[in-house]
């Protein structure tokens, strides 16, 4: 498959950080090592030929049973060139943390809180890593695949 310009630049620049790339119907995706994301994102954001200046989405996936269980997924958009890229970083359950990108995009703040709240992935260097959707007393992370589906933790009132 033909590599898009961005993916080519990325693999040239970070040969050791990129685990794999694909570009199905020009849907650029790169799977990267989680320890190198800061350099990769800084490059993607600031390189004058790329300028992915808009962090559109940040979420996570739980692949329970896989070697590295979680995957944090970032979607970037370049307002200048009208191009998009998806970056995925694998996070193992044993070492459930990744660097926060709030220093690059302030908009990542609440997204990271959401991922922390629902998946329990910690973001190193996040200014205010609290739960955002669930309440403080909530135990566990409900979007993890091993969260019991019928479990109820009401804040007040009788247990349903």
């Amino acid at each position, binding site marked *: 498959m033909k590599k898009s310009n961005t993916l080519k630049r990325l693999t040239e620049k970070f040969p050791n950080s990129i685990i794999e790339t694909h570009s199905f119907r020009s849907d650029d995706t790169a799977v990267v090592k989680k320890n190198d994301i800061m350099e990769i994102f800084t490059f993607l954001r600031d390189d004058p030929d790329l300028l992915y200046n808009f962090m559109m989405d940040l979420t996570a996936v739980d692949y329970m049973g896989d070697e590295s269980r979680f995957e944090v997924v970032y979607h970037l958009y370049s307002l200048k060139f009208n191009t998009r890229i998806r970056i995925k970083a694998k996070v193992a359950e044993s070492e459930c943390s990744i660097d926060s990108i709030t220093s690059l995009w302030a908009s990542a703040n609440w997204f990271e809180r959401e991922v922390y709240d629902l998946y329990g992935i910690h973001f190193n260097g996040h200014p205010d890593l609290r739960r955002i*959707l669930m309440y403080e007393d909530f135990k566990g992370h*409900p979007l993890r695949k091993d969260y019991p*589906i019928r*479990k109820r*933790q*009401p*804040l*007040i*009132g009788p247990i*349903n």
Partner: protein
Amino acid sequence: MGIIDKIQTITRQAIHEPKEEDPSKLLGDSIILTQLESVVDWARKYSLFLYPFATACCAMEFMSLGGPKYDLDRFGAALPRFTPRQADLLLVVGTISHKQAPILVKIYNQMTEPKWVMAFGICAVSGGFYDNYATVQGIDTLIPVDVYIPGCPPRPEMVIDGLIKLQEKIAKEKWTDWPKGAAPVVAKS
């Protein structure tokens, strides 16, 4: 004989020596005899001030209900008050999450009595299809509910039907039904 004495005499007659003839007729058309309780209930059922606790998609249906086509005004329940202290019918319109539950309880407790609660839509009734970690499985686990209206969302006709049922319920209320007091659960936050 003054009018008060006349009413007293006739009432006494009606109670102690009942006659075939309706005693209230003796007073002419300008005076109606009734019980205070039923007059108050009658007034209450046609002057419901709503507090729409609208949290989700059901609120759209609530809007159409208030609009000219379905016109809740016809049933004396037209005026939404956006402070619970001026409202007497709490409409819980939409999904209630566990995080929202303390707020709902607080709103309920802030309303002055007499007050009634309508669970509008299946989410408020039972949690609906949100059988998950976040959703309260029916607001009656938190506060007392007077009418349940199923449907996702309910048709405005169903809500009107529910409102009429509530009015029938109000018409049968006794003094002793009030006050009901605070919600049975304690809101932590």
